[in-house]
Structure formats: structure tokens, C-alpha cells
């Protein structure tokens, strides 16, 4: 059936291009607008080009303390990423053979993914409020709260990132050839050595993918943080707060800064994955590829 491209190809290619434009067009518009001149407004045309609004953010003359929110989000993102990677890889290994409670864990993960975020967030906030009340009633009257960035906030983010991590692990092990591990064990490797020197190097590109999901989903998380983060705000929460009073381009400048971090992380992760894949292709075995 090789007879040139059918007409439907061109129709759908245009459709796809329009979809990509729809995805990226508006984002690019605000990146450009964040370089408005000092007199510039919220819309096109540009009123001069400057880094005035970006600089204003860094001077901290804005409405909120963005530097602190930035550091909090970064800290939380890195912790969420690390925990997501470790727990997902471990749980993914467990799913390679039958164990009790397997389906409970599976359905918990799926449910955590699709139960509306506001409900999870409300539940976590109620849980911590009740814990606080118990502590105040029984142990310490002056206790303030156990809610916070690295308690309820961390938990809320993990309910969002772990399902993605687990699903990626499923995808990895669907394609993983268990004979590689058996071969390692036949050669006398301990289970740990087989994991460390055979399994991990093979799955490493995808594990970095899990880290990418872990960090970016946490960095931009909003719905689950909304009730569960405690007294302080993360960067996306501050940004959302600004949307109700949009009057000048500093909101775009903030959006650009947040996106810049996302894009730096995405580039770093994808670059590393690409490098690892190339190295695997270069150094990998040609077994099973036939005699050439």
C-alpha cells in the first residue's frame, strides 16, 4: 500500500498543526508580553521592549514575597520528585510478581488520580485539623498546627505524582525482558547486583521521566495545594491570587519566570534521557539482531 500520501494525511496534518498552534500560541504570547516596555499594558501591541517587568519582580516590589514562594516551591518540588522516583521504582518492582493487596494499591493509585482534587485537598485539610484538635485537647494546649508545606502539602502533592510514577513503571516493565535479569543471576549476581547493574541502567531513561513528572507536576500543582498547604503559599498559588487583580504585565513576567524553570527542567531531563538512550544504543548488545 505504498502509493504516496493520501489526501487525509494533508487534512490531518493541517489539523494537527492547528492544534499545536492552539497549544503553544497563547503561551508564547505572554512570554513575549512580559518584555513589554514600562508603559506597556496587558495586550498587544507591544509598547517598547524592556526587561522592566521582569526586573520589577526580582526587586520584590510586587504584591507578594515571590522570592520566598519560589524557594518553597523549589524545595517542595525537589522533595516530591525524589520521593516519587524512589517509591514508584520500588512499587513498580513489587508489581512484577503477585502479592497480596496488589489490586488495592492499583485501585488506590487510579482513584487518587481521578477523584477530584478539591475532595482530596479538603480531606487532607480535615484530617490535619482533627489531628491538631486532638493534640490541643490531650497533649499541648499551645500547639498551633501540624499542617504545612512538608507535611500536608507534601502528602497532597504525592497523591497526584505517585499514580503517574506507578503507571510509567507499568509501561516500563510491560516491555522489559526478564531474561536479562535471569542471565545476570545465572552469572552469579545477587538480586541487588542484578538490579543495580542490569535492571536500573536499562530503565534509567524512564526513571528520569518519572522524576520529570514528579517535579513539574509539583512545581505547578494548585488544586490539591489549595486547602492542604497550610499558612504559606507556593508559587502557583501566589500566581493564582494575582489573577483576580490583573492590571499590568508583572503577572506575565511571573508566568515567564515559572515557565522558564519548567522548561529548564524539561530540557535537562529530555537531554539526559536522549544521551542515555544514545549510550545504550552504542554500547548495548546486538544479541538477537541476527547475523550481519
Amino acid at each position, binding site marked *: 500500500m505504498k502509493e504516496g*500520501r493520501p489526501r487525509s494525511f494533508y487534512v490531518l496534518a493541517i489539523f494537527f498543526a492547528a492544534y499545536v498552534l492552539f497549544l503553544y500560541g497563547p503561551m508564547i504570547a505572554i512570554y513575549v508580553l512580559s518584555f513589554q516596555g514600562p508603559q506597556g499594558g496587558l495586550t*498587544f501591541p507591544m509598547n517598547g521592549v524592556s526587561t522592566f517587568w521582569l526586573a520589577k519582580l526580582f526587586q520584590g516590589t510586587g504584591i507578594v514575597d515571590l522570592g520566598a514562594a519560589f524557594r518553597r516551591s523549589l524545595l517542595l518540588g525537589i522533595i516530591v520528585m525524589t520521593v516519587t522516583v524512589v517509591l514508584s521504582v520500588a*512499587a513498580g518492582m*513489587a508489581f512484577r510478581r503477585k502479592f497480596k493487596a496488589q489490586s488495592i494499591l492499583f485501585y488506590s493509585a487510579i482513584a487518587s488520580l481521578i477523584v477530584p482534587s*478539591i475532595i482530596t485537598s*479538603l480531606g487532607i485539610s480535615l484530617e490535619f485539623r482533627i489531628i491538631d484538635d486532638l493534640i490541643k485537647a490531650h497533649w499541648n494546649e499551645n500547639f498551633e498546627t501540624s499542617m504545612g508545606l512538608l507535611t500536608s502539602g507534601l502528602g497532597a502533592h504525592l*497523591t497526584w505524582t505517585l499514580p503517574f510514577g506507578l503507571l510509567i513503571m507499568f509501561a516500563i516493565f510491560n516491555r522489559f525482558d526478564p531474561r536479562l535479569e535471569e542471565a545476570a543471576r545465572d552469572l552469579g549476581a545477587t538480586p541487588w547486583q542484578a538490579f543495580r547493574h542490569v535492571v536500573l541502567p536499562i530503565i534509567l531513561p524512564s526513571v528520569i521521566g518519572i522524576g520529570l513528572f514528579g517535579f513539574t507536576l509539583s512545581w505547578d500543582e494548585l*488544586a490539591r495545594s489549595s486547602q492542604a498547604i497550610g499558612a504559606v503559599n507556593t508559587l502557583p498559588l501566589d500566581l493564582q491570587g494575582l489573577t483576580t487583580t490583573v492590571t499590568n504585565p508583572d503577572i506575565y513576567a511571573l508566568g515567564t519566570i515559572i515557565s522558564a524553570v519548567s522548561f529548564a527542567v524539561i530540557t535537562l531531563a529530555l537531554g539526559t534521557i536522549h544521551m542515555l538512550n544514545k549510550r545504550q544504543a552504542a554500547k548495548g548488545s546486538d544479541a538477537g539482531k541476527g547475523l550481519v
Partner: protein
Amino acid sequence: MDTSEDILQQPSPDLVRGSETARPAKAARLSPSFISWLQAGPMMLVFLAFFLIPLVFVVIVSFWDYNEYQLLPTFSGRGYTDTFEGCIAQLPDLCTIGRTYVKTLKLCVMVWAITLFIGFWVAYFLAFHVKSKTWQMGLSLLCTIPFWTSNVIRMIAWIPLLGRNGLVNSGLVKSGLINQPLEWLLFSEFSVVLALVHLFTFFMVVPIFNSMVRIDKSLIEAAYDAGATGFQTLVNVIIPLAKPGIVIGSIFVITIVMGDFITIGVMGGQQIASAGKIIETRVNALQFPAAAANAVILLVITFLIITMMSRIVDIKKEL
């Protein structure tokens, strides 16, 4: 080798028995099922502490009483009666909660239909028309990257385009099509639907693409050889085989829109009510039992929708 390393070991049962002779002490210490528990346990604990127990608290608190400033842990149906206030008296007109749910479901159906249409054809293009694996990977990545960036930024990104002096309005005015800027482009139901489609079509593309790449290409050739037109192949071969992806994508999109309060808040100018937004409003008023009651109602309705949809397809088999 210390015990912490054993956490990650992966022997099949046979091999463990084999290694028992070699290292009897260790095998006696850690059985395979214990190792599975060590591996899966931490994730299970996170879901228990931050998802399952919180859900239980939502249900419990929905039956508590409350006053202006605190929770009262005594049984009360007030959370629910307050929510459904006037629902019987106002019949046949809908009460506030009824109207809100009708509105939310309407949004859901609109967003679902549009994301399904776009998602299906984008996935179709990637799966069947893009032949080279490298291109397929590159273009899929192009669709995924926005998902890794902030939703709020992707919402406010519409402001310079749709605002009163935005690109669309000024373009339309200049071209003489309209005299006055259109007011309904931003902070309206239109902008809410547009933003939801913009943000969440990704959740449709991925599962449908996943189902489509698994379709054996020889089936399509067989249909072609048997004289089926392109349309017949689509309806009788591709759509039935892509159904699992369509259902999973639909579940994602529908549950996201049902519970959404941020997109509806930001893009609706905080003026449009939705099932998720009621919960947020109640929490902000510190009426936790009423918020919890609304959460339970939303949960039940979402669960019913998912159950209905998963009748059509076995989700676990598809992952």
C-alpha cells in the same frame, strides 16, 4: 550486602529456593512476600495517609454539626439539609445546587465532546499517518510539553488574546466585522470551555493514541483488501479497537471538569458556579461539614459516571 539492599531484590520463587542452599541465613530472614511488602508498602502508606483516610474524614465530617467558627463533632444532617435547602419547596424549578449541577454537567458534556473530537484526530494522525518512530516520538513530545508547564499560566495566556482590547477583538474591529469589542470572549462560559479544552485535550490524546498504536496494521489492510472504504474502516475497525482509549480519556476529562474550580474560577471571572466551586466557597466560609457534604455528593456522582463508563471497558486490562 546489608538488609537495606534486599528491599530491591527481585527473585522469582524458584530462584529464592535455589539461593536458600547458597545463603540459607538470608533467605530465611526475608520471604518474597515480605520483600513485596517492603517495596510496595511505602507507596501504600502514602495513599493511606493522604488519600484513603482523608476520604473517610470527608464522609465523617459531612455528618457533623457546625456553627460560625468551628466544627462540632456531633451527628447532624445539617451539611446536607443546608445544601439542598429549598429543593422541594421550589419544585418544579431547580434549587441552587440542582442548577449548579446541571450547569457543571453541561460544561462537562461540551468539553468532553470537543476534547474527544480533537483528541481522536490528533491521536489518529500520530498513530496512522506518522510512519517514522522518531517523528512519532517528537510530535507526541510536542503535545506533552505543555502538560509539564503551569495550568494557571496557560489560562492567563488567553487574556492578551481574548480581552476587550485583545488580539481577537482588535482584529475583528479592524476588519470591520464588528463595531464593538465582543464582551463574551473572556470571563465567560466560552472562555471556560476554551481553557478546559486547551488544558485537558492531552488527557484524551494519550490513551487514544495508546490504543491506536496497538491496533495491528494488517487488520486495516485486510479491511482495505476486502473493499471497505476509509470511512467503513474507521467506523468498523478503528473506532471499536480504540474504544478502551476513548473511554479512559473520557473518564479523565469528565472527572477533571466535574471537580474543577480553578479554571472555572479564573476564566469565568469568579462568576460561574460549579460543583467544585461550591466546595471551595463553603471551605472559605469555614463551613467544613457543608463543604464535606458537597464533596460526598460530587464523589457519588463522579463514581456513578465512572462506573457507567467502565462497564464498557476493563480499565485494568488496558494499562
